[in-house]
């Protein structure tokens, strides 16, 4: 089977020849290819080249079109500060949203001309044209609150959600328009799977009630727009106690990438029994732990993951979030090898 067939089988909740596997690295791309991380983040062509070389080296089942979580906010005009070998950050001395009134003043922009969106789309286009016949391309957009947090500061945004929910919702509406445009551009480039970074939909950030009050309408609109293109949606929620059931009230999704269990499940087998006939499950290695393990320990952990979630198909072995860039490259290999060694379906 090709990776395209293997991943699609898992998304259809079927067994493939083996469990598909995704390393999910962006920070590590520079180290693998000898390029400065800060440089590749600002150059879509270079990022695509590094991602293609890395996928070829390790042989996992996805190509990942992602630069960082600041692509959308940068397009709105929020200054990004880039570092040489680390991820960049939004300039906190000059947040664009200075008061609740500023949420509604955000100006939608053209993703085809905004520098970083253009880089991301370029990255996807190159990966699609080079290898999408065999390996599917998965691209990422940020849920609106992530982008608003980059432009307001997370602490102020969280308080605004309580104090000025209507103002925040106006911001969510505008950012939703943007991620619909960006998703359409990425899908137009040939991306097969859209991954939504869903960092606020868990108990670490907002109550379930407040999360739905602020983001449900926007996410439902995005869901409808992406689904209308026939593209599959992967929800990424790496925080503790993700709101899986609440997310389903937004719409039906194809896959959930997780690190931690939601409420109502005490172990992963239980999670599989509860949701396995509804969604493909991706995860659940905890990245910081996976980075510290020896390759042997990591393989043992992968074996456990596969035994818990692999039976019957509908499972993709992966970390619950980015595999840390400073991890041993032997661990990247151990992850991919584990799918081959322990994930074969008979």
């Amino acid at each position, binding site marked *: 089977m090709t990776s395209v067939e293997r991943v699609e089988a898992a998304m259809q909740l079927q067994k493939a020849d083996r469990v598909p596997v995704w390393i999910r690295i962006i920070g590590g791309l520079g180290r693998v290819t000898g390029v400065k991380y800060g440089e590749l983040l600002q150059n879509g062509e270079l990022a695509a080249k590094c991602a293609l070389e890395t996928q070829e080296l390790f042989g996992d089942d996805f190509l990942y079109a992602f630069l960082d979580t600041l692509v959308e906010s940068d397009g709105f005009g929020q200054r990004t500060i880039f570092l040489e070998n680390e991820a960049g950050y939004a300039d906190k001395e000059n947040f664009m949203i200075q008061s609740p009134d500023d949420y509604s003043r955000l100006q939608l922009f053209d993703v085809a001309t905004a520098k970083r969106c253009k880089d991301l789309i370029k990255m996807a286009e190159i990966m699609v044209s080079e290898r999408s016949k065999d390996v599917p391309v998965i691209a990422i957009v940020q849920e609106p609150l992530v982008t608003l947090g980059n432009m307001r500061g997370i602490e102020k945004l969280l308080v605004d959600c309580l104090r000025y929910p209507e103002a925040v919702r106006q911001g969510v509406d505008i950012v939703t328009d943007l991620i619909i445009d960006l998703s359409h551009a990425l899908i137009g480039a040939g991306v097969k799977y859209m991954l939504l970074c869903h960092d606020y939909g868990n108990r670490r950030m907002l*109550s379930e009630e407040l999360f739905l009050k602020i983001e449900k309408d926007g996410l439902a609109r995005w869901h409808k727009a992406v689904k209308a293109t026939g593209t599959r949606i992967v929800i990424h929620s790496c925080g503790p106690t993700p709101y899986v059931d609440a997310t389903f009230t937004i719409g039906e999704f194809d896959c959930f990438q997780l690190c931690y269990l939601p409420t109502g499940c005490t172990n992963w087998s239980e999670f599989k029994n509860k949701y396995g006939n509804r969604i493909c499950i991706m995860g659940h290695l905890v990245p910081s732990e996976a980075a510290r393990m020896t390759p042997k320990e990591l393989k043992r952990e992968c074996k456990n993951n596969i035994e818990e979630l692999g039976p019957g198909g509908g499972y993709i072995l992966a970390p619950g979030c980015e595999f840390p860039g400073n991890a041993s490259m032997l661990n990247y290999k151990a992850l991919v090898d584990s799918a081959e060694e322990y994930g074969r379906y008979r």
Partner: protein
Amino acid sequence: MSIKENTLDTMKQVLFNLQENDVYELVRKALAEGYDPTDIINKGLTPGMVAVGEEFEKYRYYLPELLLCAEIFRASVDIVKPKMKHTGTKNKGTVVLGTIQEDIHEIGKNLVKLIFELAGIEVHDLGIDVPCAKFIEEKSRTNAEIVAASAMITSTVPGLKKLTELVKREAPGTAVMIGGAPVTDSLAEEYGADGFAPDCISAVKVAETLIGSVRAQRSARVPGKQPG
């Protein structure tokens, strides 16, 4: 229960309910009626903040509620402060705080700072991307009981080990607290840190315990003084 206690109970309750304007109104009214400003803080506002912290630990309140409560608390203290006589309030301890070198993620660090200050702990915040030597320098300047640092990304976590070793070597008798998303209790133990907390509320409890231990050790070392 006296009328005064009733008012302070109400203050606690409205803060707990995050009724922002009601809190300010009640604080102003209490001052106008001659309430002791220290009582307003210690018996009205602080119990309200503590109650919110308890709800946060039980997942009945979340980060937005905790942050809003802290904002209301601070604004209320600002109203009360001009009426306070300088009575030389007891220092509950001093902490040097920052994110470890090359780490710029500060939301967790800021939350810890906020909650420490509300608990009466003096915080010297060195900000983000702080070199280990800077922590030692600030510790020497302030004689802090604790050096506390956080790391949010796995690539910067080893810096916490370096800092712990440096503090143990250069500033013995100082406790080290570490935290951040990739940090665990077992990692803190492996690095030789004295304290770890998974969130800002439990961090206060850990810090208070460590401050007590450090002070006891320090006073035991002073000739003629008995350990506490």
